[in-house]
């Protein structure tokens, strides 16, 4: 192609070096495209910043799962005594040791991404990208120096950042978000987590697990969008496990006391009273906002959803401008998950290189909430299934089970539960699977393949379980909700 006058600097410029942006740019480069990726991290309000890799690597999935593991190990150490291990009381946790190890691992991943991009000949620019026109991207340094790149196609994968409440005095000056929690040099101490999203519950969960006095403040419901019965089991377990919950409460102000502690004043909507308490840290987990404001989208004509601020995208990740695409957390209506961003990015790269026409399938994507009692699911929640098909056309099989490992450890398994939502008639196609219990993500991954293959209740019941496991309980469900019978599993 050398003899053709190269019209643009690049075949593809990707703005955003997170899970999606990196997958897309590397795939495109491997398919022979000339690619550049711009990644830039605006420091958080507290000044936290990080390297290449996006939210997942730096302030999301990775550090979260490692800290969740730290908390689980704390519980395991306590269980260990019942299994014969001689472990001195009290067992204590050192934040600095955990944080350093987690942060070092994250830094090795930042480096790993740098090596991969270089190796695959993707040009990496640590610049804040924005659109000048449909084929020109402006890159800006921290000091404001500008440079320009032209591209045949532009992909926006800038993701999102945690929101701060705008109407609560002291929120931003004194509070932190998930952008900061994993990079703290010292333990957060007595913490108020505001919000009941999976971010809020996961953070509150591991903080409790490592011994921090933690309270979760919930305005209305927990895990909005998830099956609410399962959400209840998750929060019930957290409460039994030591996290305090303030239901129906709304923070009003945060003040710093002379001691350095934070005084939070809130309204309890259930009693109508105003309450206060002091905390060492306040963690806002009240939602995430798309990183779209500084992109210059309106100037170029890229349509944005007025309510959410996210970019309106088609099934092929296209935007309202023909050569500009957007995917990952920035896309309106898209799951805010790493694996969907990665897969969508790779498929988009293949389509842009003319190698494929395959679109991303966003249905039946399995997920897991890594709370102290983990919750995994794939497919529809019970409410969604009822909403779509009607109560009469749905059958829900369920079981309360007890993980074998909990017996000797004398652990309460009241919230360990499985639910299979399926069609009532015909082949009884499975519409949704829900599981609370240990290793929820590991348990659910294989079953999500089954859903993709159109698994029915008979398929599930004909599957022989692996014994003794928690996962096998999914193959043994027989009690329906409709029957009203006791769904507690008895021994084998």
């Amino acid at each position: 192609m050398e003899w053709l006058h190269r019209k643009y600097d690049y075949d593809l410029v990707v703005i955003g070096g997170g899970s999606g942006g990196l997958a897309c740019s590397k795939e495109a480069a491997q398919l022979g495209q000339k690619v550049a990726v711009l990644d830039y991290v605006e420091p958080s309000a507290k000044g936290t910043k990080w390297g290449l890799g996006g939210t997942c690597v730096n302030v999301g999935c990775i550090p979260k799962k490692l800290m969740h593991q730290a908390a689980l190990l704390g519980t395991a150490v306590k269980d260990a005594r019942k299994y014969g291990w001689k472990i001195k009381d009290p067992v204590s946790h050192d934040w600095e040791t955990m944080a350093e190890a987690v942060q070092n691992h994250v830094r090795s991943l930042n480096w790993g991404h740098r090596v991969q991009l270089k190796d695959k000949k993707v040009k990496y620019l640590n610049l804040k990208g924005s659109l000048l026109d449909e084929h020109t991207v402006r890159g800006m340094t921290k000091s404001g120096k500008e440079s320009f790149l032209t591209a045949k196609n532009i992909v926006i994968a800038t993701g999102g950042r945690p929101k701060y409440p705008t109407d609560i005095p002291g929120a931003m000056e004194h509070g932190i978000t998930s952008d900061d929690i994993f990079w703290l040099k010292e333990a957060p101490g007595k913490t108020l987590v505001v919000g009941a999203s999976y971010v809020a519950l996961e953070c509150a969960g591991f903080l409790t697990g490592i011994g921090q006095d933690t309270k979760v403040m919930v305005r209305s419901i927990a895990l909005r969008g998830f099956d609410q019965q399962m959400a209840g089991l998750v929060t019930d377990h957290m409460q039994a496990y030591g996290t305090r919950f303030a239901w129906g409460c709304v923070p009003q102000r945060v003040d710093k006391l002379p001691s350095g502690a934070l005084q939070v004043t809130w309204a309890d909507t259930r009693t109508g009273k105003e309450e206060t308490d002091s905390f060492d840290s306040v963690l806002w987990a009240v939602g995430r906002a798309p990183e779209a404001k500084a992109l210059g989208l309106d100037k170029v004509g890229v349509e944005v959803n007025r309510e959410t601020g996210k970019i309106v995208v088609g099934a092929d990740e296209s935007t309202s401008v023909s050569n500009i695409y957007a995917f990952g957390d920035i896309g309106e209506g898209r799951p805010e998950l790493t694996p969907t961003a990665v897969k969508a990015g790779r498929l988009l790269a293949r389509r842009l290189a003319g190698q494929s026409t395959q679109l991303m399938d966003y249905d039946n994507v399995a997920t897991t909430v890594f709370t102290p009692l983990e919750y995994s699911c794939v497919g529809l929640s019970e409410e969604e299934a009822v909403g779509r098909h009607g109560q009469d056309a749905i059958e829900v099989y369920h079981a309360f089970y007890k993980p074998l490992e909990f017996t000797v450890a004398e652990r309460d398994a009241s919230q360990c539960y499985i639910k299979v939502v399926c069609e009532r008639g015909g082949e009884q196609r499975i519409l949704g699977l829900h599981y609370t219990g240990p290793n929820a993500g590991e348990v659910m991954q294989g079953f999500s393949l089954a859903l993709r293959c159109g698994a029915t209740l008979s398929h599930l019941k004909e599957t022989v379980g692996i014994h003794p496991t928690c996962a096998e309980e999914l193959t043994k469900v027989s009690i329906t909700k409709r029957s009203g019978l006791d769904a507690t599993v008895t021994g084998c």
Partner: protein
Amino acid sequence: MSLYEEVKVHGYAEFCKAVSDRKGKDIFAYFSGNVIKMTTSEPTVRGEISHLPEGSVFIYCQVGQRDYWKNPNNDFKKTLKLSGVPTLLRYGTPQKLVEEECFKANLVRMMFTED
């Protein structure tokens, strides 16, 4: 005028001494096994050596004989966490290039020149 200091050491003890004698410096270390038949990546690394930051240190470390290296409990594996030779690393940072990566000039240059 040399922009960087080169140090040649044999074995773990010598390596540790070379590092402790140069506290506060930007140290790049290249670990090599006793290569007789294998192609060495040394020429690739040496080819980029002019790109080392000013005032930095380049330690060329021979890890020792084959049976010493094969032992999974040797100090390089246990303490320095080396997984293979050759390894090129920037001491005290997660920046590391292992085995085939050391044969790629662009990766070596990236480690020497980028932050």
